[in-house]
């Protein structure tokens, strides 16, 4: 695991009643550079580790910026950030990693964001402008609630920005993709339903999967508590309702490599020997699910899970 960074919360800004921006600066020296689309994991004092996209200009390494939406079903991460974190507080971060880079072969970039899913595209937009690339940003939001950075984006992007305010204009993935030139790639960040819809429409129009890139920003959803046993040590763990299996393992000193903590990157893949698993990830192939799970999102749903670690 790469070293952790200590940062200070330099400023907190309310963007909408439910979205806040946090500016983080290094305690000493500069922060590591990052590429557009990167995220960092925040290590919160309450034991949570959540991943957030870096939305600042990648050229600016004096500070990192993230934006957090208060989730109604927060397991403690976004609630902590919104209610307890103050300017001046110190936080630990993992170094940036990028699971959502721009595709080097793309000639046209279609960026599709819903709500807080806008965050990685703020960095992407700056990068694409700098490259003089051909791109469009399609932004679905709820006016006054999840429309963070709208004014800034209008100014920055002009006609490159297409807006879909809820209740007024629907974002239709089929229409968005139809008739695009051969060098097109689409990037999406937003709720599950949007990602699935886009993937499905792309396939229905003959697009190779390789043209479709997405980031699931959602933190793992809570569920029922369940039991886990570690086959090699015989240890038994109880995973709480609002805790992920990965978090429970970490709380017990078992470190599993991980990057996205959202079931997409594949880093945390772990073999299991028996038990009923509700998978919830976007990584494993159907055949792999009988003996592998992704502890960042997968949960038990019946008989205890016996992990092969």
């Amino acid at each position, binding site marked *: 695991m790469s070293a952790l960074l200590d940062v200070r919360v330099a400023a907190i800004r309310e963007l909408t009643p439910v979205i806040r921006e946090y500016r983080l600066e290094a305690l000493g020296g500069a922060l590591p550079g990052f590429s557009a689309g990167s995220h960092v994991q925040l290590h919160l004092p309450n034991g949570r580790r959540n991943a957030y996209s870096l939305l600042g200009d990648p050229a600016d390494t004096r500070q990192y910026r993230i934006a957090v939406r208060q989730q109604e079903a927060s397991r403690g991460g976004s609630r902590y950030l919104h209610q307890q974190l103050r300017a001046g507080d110190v936080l630990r971060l993992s170094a940036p990693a990028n699971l959502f880079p721009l595709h080097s072969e793309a000639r046209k970039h279609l960026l599709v964001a819903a709500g807080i899913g806008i965050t990685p595209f703020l960095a992407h937009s700056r990068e694409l402008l700098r490259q003089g690339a051909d791109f469009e940003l399609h932004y679905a939001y709820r006016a006054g609630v999840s429309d963070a950075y709208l004014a800034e984006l209008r100014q920055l992007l002009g006609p490159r920005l297409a807006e879909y305010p809820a209740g007024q204009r629907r974002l239709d993935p089929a229409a968005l993709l139809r008739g695009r030139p051969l*060098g097109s790639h689409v990037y999406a960040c937003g709720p599950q339903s949007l990602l699935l819809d886009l993937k499905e429409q792309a396939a229905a*129009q*003959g697009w190779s999967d390789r043209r479709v890139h997405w980031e699931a920003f959602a933190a793992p959803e809570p569920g029922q508590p369940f039991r886990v046993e570690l086959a090699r040590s015989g240890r038994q763990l109880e995973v709480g309702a609002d805790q992920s299996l990965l978090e429970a393992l970490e709380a017990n000193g078992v470190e599993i490599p991980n990057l996205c903590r959202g079931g997409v990157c594949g880093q945390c893949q772990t073999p299991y020997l028996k038990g009923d698993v509700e998978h919830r990830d976007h990584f494993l192939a159907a055949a792999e699910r009988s003996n592998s799970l992704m502890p960042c999102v997968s949960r038990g749903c019946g008989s205890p899970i016996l992990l092969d670690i």
Partner: protein
Amino acid sequence: MSSAPTDHPFSVPRYPSGQPCPEAPEHLLVTQGTEAALRGTLAAQLGAVPVSHLALPDFPHQAALQAALRARLDAAPAGLRLELHGDEAFIWPLHALARQAGLQADEILLHCDASGSRRVFCVHCANCQPAGASAHLTCAHCGVVLEVRRHFSQRLGAYLGVCADADQPYQEIQP
């Protein structure tokens, strides 16, 4: 994670390389021969998907076919699938052109006539040349006797040719 043992080197392409896509807005077939029947078979297989065909014999030379393909791809929507039929020396330059035009590798289907010509890249003088199926050839450009390695460069559309006998680079291969 398990992978079956194979003697198929990673870089050497497999043919055919996939299946026609019934969701594509358009299917473009490019053939080295006339292949009159092929278009019909494909159209029947694809139902409502429009199929168009560029055949080398309809063009004065290969460069003209390439220009026509380029023009088609520049006007084509994402989702178009391309199918190339011919020997390796024919399909790979078209493959490179299509990748350049924005097609993803898995949007290009390759059918290869293995009895035809392939290309070999001489690592000593950095020239490509046509070759048959033989494992050895004398480089037409620098005269070194080459052993054709089972390593394929998609970018060059050619197999790697390396000096067969470093002690006697210019000697005929003895049977």
